[in-house]
Structures are given as C-alpha cells and as structure tokens.
C-alpha cells in the first residue's frame, strides 16, 4: 500500500484572501500618504538671536551658565546655539497677604536672597518656513516657546522672551 503525501495546494480562497489583504494595505498606504501633512517649505534664514529666561536658579548654579557654552535641547540632544550673553536678576517672591496703600490693594514682593532669574542670549542658525516662523533644530522660535535648556553642567526648562534676526554682515 502506497501512502500518498498530501501536498498543500494553493486554492482560490487563498488567492482571494491575499488579494483582499493587498487591497487593504494599498488603501491604507494611500490614505496615510494623502492625509499626512505636507511638510512646510523651509529656507535657511541665517543667524537668529533669542533670549530665554530660566526662573529661580540657585545662586550656586549661576557659574554653570557661561558665555561661549553650547546649548542643547535636553530632550532631543540637538544643538540649539551658543551663549553670547548672560544676565541675572534676583527672583521675586509674591506675598499672599495684601497690602493697602492709599486705598489701593497691592501684592507685596520680596527678592529671594539665593535664587535668580537668568536671561540667556543664544545665537544660532535658523530656518524659516513659508509663514515666516523661525525654527532652530525643530524648536519654534516665538515668544513663550519652551526651550529644554542644557549646557554641559546644567539643565532646566526655559522660555523664550525675545528674538531677533540678524542679517549677515
């Protein structure tokens, strides 16, 4: 008695299934490509200077933020620019008990003795899109943008307070 080996046979149902799956993949790919936002046109706009404010920095850390340091994005690691100026002013504490002077209610403020608001000026090469909005290494350069500030020995969240473009001289 001979035993016949049953071969796997490619049948019509298998063919239909494969065609359906390929069709689904093709439709999904088409939808994804058409729905994906067209990347904005960017051009190199040259040098930009922007100021960031780092709030409530301990006095002991002030020396860690220096002119000439390279600033990186602490999340992505991308280089954001180079520090060209550092200014500090004492951070302020706002009281919770109002003071009345000449009928006007005001909030008392006091300087912290050991905390500072640090204003760092950074220069960088920026790109500008068709809307006129500048970006540096993916960070949008507008007032209020969050910058994940990192220099060799110091990291903090900071916010852009000012920016200006410089035409090449």
């Amino acid at each position, binding site marked *: 008695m*001979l035993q016949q080996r049953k071969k796997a046979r490619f049948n*019509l149902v298998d063919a239909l299934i494969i065609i359906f799956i390929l069709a689904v993949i093709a439709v999904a790919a088409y939808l994804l490509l058409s729905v994906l*936002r067209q990347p904005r046109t960017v051009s190199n706009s040259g040098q930009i200077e922007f100021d960031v404010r780092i709030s409530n920095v301990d006095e002991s850390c002030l020396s860690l933020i220096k002119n000439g340091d390279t600033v990186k994005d602490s999340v992505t690691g991308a280089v954001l620019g180079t520090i060209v100026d550092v200014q500090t002013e004492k951070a302020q504490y*706002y009281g*919770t008990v*109002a003071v*009345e002077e000449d009928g006007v209610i005001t*909030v008392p403020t006091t300087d912290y003795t050991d905390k500072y608001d640090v204003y760092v000026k950074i220069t960088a090469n920026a790109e500008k899109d068709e809307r006129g909005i500048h970006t540096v290494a993916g960070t949008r350069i*507008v*007032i209020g943008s969050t910058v994940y500030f990192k220099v060799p020995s110091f990291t903090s969240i900071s916010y852009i307070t000012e920016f200006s473009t410089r035409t090449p001289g």
Partner: protein
Amino acid sequence: MQTKQKTGPRFNIFDVLIILAVISCIAAIVVKVFFIEEVQADLNNAEITFIVENVSEGTAEAFCVPDRQIYLQDDDTQIGTLQSASYSAQKLLVEDAGGKLVEADHPTKKQIQGVASMSGYWSEDGFLIGGTHLATVGSTFKIYTKDVACTIKIVGIAE
C-alpha cells in the same frame, strides 16, 4: 490496491473570519474618509472669545497684533485668525489683614483677552474647530502665532 482520495480546496470557518475582518477594515476606512470629507465641506465660522493668563508684559504686547494666523502647537494646524486682543493686569486673590479674600493686581503678570475667528463644525457636543478639535467654554488649547506661543482658555463661543 490503491485508493485515491480527492482533496479539493476546502472553505472553512477561519477563511470566513479573515475575509469578514478584511471587509470590515475596508468599510471602516471608507466610512471615515467620506465622513471627514463631508465635515470639511460644511465648515462654518465662529467667533471664539478667549483669555490667556499669567503672561509677561512682553508676551502680552507681542500677542496683541490683529490678523495673525493661529495654529495648534500639537499638529501645526491653522485653526483661525486673531481679530482683536488687549491685555490688563492679571488679577490675584489674596488675603487682606483681616483674613478676607480680596482681588489685587499681580505686580508683573498680565492677562490677555482676545477674540478669534475660527472655522469649524457645530455638533451636539459643541463646536469642532477644524471639524476635529472640540471647543467648549472652559477648554484650553496650546496655540502659537508668528510671534507668540501660549495657552488660550475659551470663555465664549458665538456663531
């Protein structure tokens, strides 16, 4: 004696399940595509009144430039145009000497009040900005313009 067994193609329950799953996926994609197209075809304009709280004076000044396009920070979608904006001192609640809560001006922070024109779609849940982002009084959006990035809080929506 040899017996030949015919083994033809057999259509079983698993094949049926796979085909049903694939057809369902295609149907879902088609419905979603046509729904989105319909929504975008029927976009209306709405007047959105909003505030921005606790910003510096520099930010407030830079924001109050009319006719600026407004974009969502999350996906860069343009959602509207700033019609008008102004700012005033941010109000704080503090205690007076008697322990009573009183309102005072923050020494440095400002609050922006603005009106923007946004296109979207009215649904039973509220106004869908761009047909996709639900906006109701109290909802917040992280937005940016050409000059400023901030968070707006919606305080009014009118047709």
